């Protein structure tokens, strides 16, 4: 089982976390066109390589945090906490 490093708790089994998804910025709901909004809803960069993403430490400190992970080998490096 992969270890994931929570910025609060350190390296923990990935089963303690919930995967939230690629980090995305939410378009302004007042001005977004349907196309922009649906790209936010449905489209993903989905690279084979490094990606910024959000995880939730549900069985730990319950923080949402950002991390960078390589989707090919699951290597990780810290990213700025999204909050």
């Amino acid at each position, binding site marked *: 089982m992969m270890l994931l490093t929570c910025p609060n708790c350190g390296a923990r089994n990935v*089963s303690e976390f919930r*995967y939230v*998804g690629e980090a995305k910025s939410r378009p302004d709901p007042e001005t977004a066109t349907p196309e922009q909004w649906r790209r936010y809803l449905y489209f*993903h960069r*989905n690279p084979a390589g490094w990606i910024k993403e959000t995880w939730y430490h549900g069985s730990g400190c319950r923080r949402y945090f950002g991390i960078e992970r390589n989707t090919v*080998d699951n290597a990780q490096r810290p990213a700025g906490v999204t909050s």
Partner: protein
Amino acid sequence: MSRNGQRTPRYSAWSLVRHGLGAGGEWGRAFRHHTPRQAYDVVIIGGGVHGLATAHYLAENHGITNIAVLEKSYIGSGGSGRNTAILRSNYLTPEGVRFYDRSVKLYEHLAADLNFNVMFSQRGHMTLAHNDSSLRTMHWRAEVNKLQGVDSSVIDPGEIKKLVPYMDVSASTRYPILGALYHPPGGIIRHDAVVWGYARSADAHGVHIHQKTEVVGIDVTSNRVTGVRTADGRRISAPVVVNCTAGWSTLISDMVGVDMPVQTFPLQAAVTEPVKPFLDTVVVSGTLHTYVSQTDRGELVFGASVDPFASYSTRGSLDFVEGLAGHVLELMPALSKMRLLRQWAGLCDMTPDYSPIMGLTPVEGFFVDVGWGTYGFKAGPVSGEAMAACIAHGKPPEIIAAFGLDRFEEGRLVGEKGAAAVGH
């Protein structure tokens, strides 16, 4: 079947006997090596069942044979050779049911059509319901299926026990079995044989299958595809390029700048050592995220839902086999002494509405047949048939009209998302 004037040796019991007696000569190659041409009419990226079936039907139904299928590894090395080979058509939406029903129908005659025994075993497929809401969904599917003429009904625990004597249908379990959606035409097939059968037929029609040929770039001029570039430094011209990949569909589409509503997740599977046949039906439990069938070799083949996070890694996890074993023993407790032999993983391109993306794209000449999630193998023949028609006529046929890429930006998602469950 002719091949450049030469007859391909036909497979039959009689030819097998003649070969056995030494009178048959060589069987001949089922698929050959070729030097790539500089130009093809159609370049198909991905030598799995989708790519090869598309090539087969382009040749068979539309007379287009100047085709290259480019496969970065060996044919069937991706999802086609890693799935659990379950076929069914008991979907939730009318468009889904019609589409997969056509696929099952094509599969039923595929052995004869391809002169290659794909060993389709229509042994029946049951999806268990462990709670009220999943039982309601099973009824929903059964009613939709019946209206589309697909054999599908909800059966009770007594009937389940008759079909699967090893099943624990007692009420005292943690996840009691309340009923099941039973689908007699569903079953399992020899997945590799489907790949080889299509490859052999395509080859006989003159299609070039280039294995160990990775596409590293796609050339586009004035929003029109002009060809592909391969890892060994070749440039192959083609006015039509088809993305028939799974796992890598985002990366291929990125080469022409077409964004995809796709996320790639590993899907794991496992197989046990063989035991004498005792399980004649495919058993699926959405609640327990498990499906199980027994092959003609006696092995139990297990699968589950996709991994909990997106990744291109196919290394697999212990959690998966632990959960799987627990759930299988929940259903069939007598199997605890059976041994798990091997586990593996494939890559699934998940879309937001659990339906594929098929047809044209904003780049002229660039077609996609991707986003196959966990249900791509089932759809191999119908996808090949429909994509061939789409390429030949330049517009998607009715049967895949709902699956266009434009539906996401337009907010017209397909209703299979209505009751998301383990899709096997």
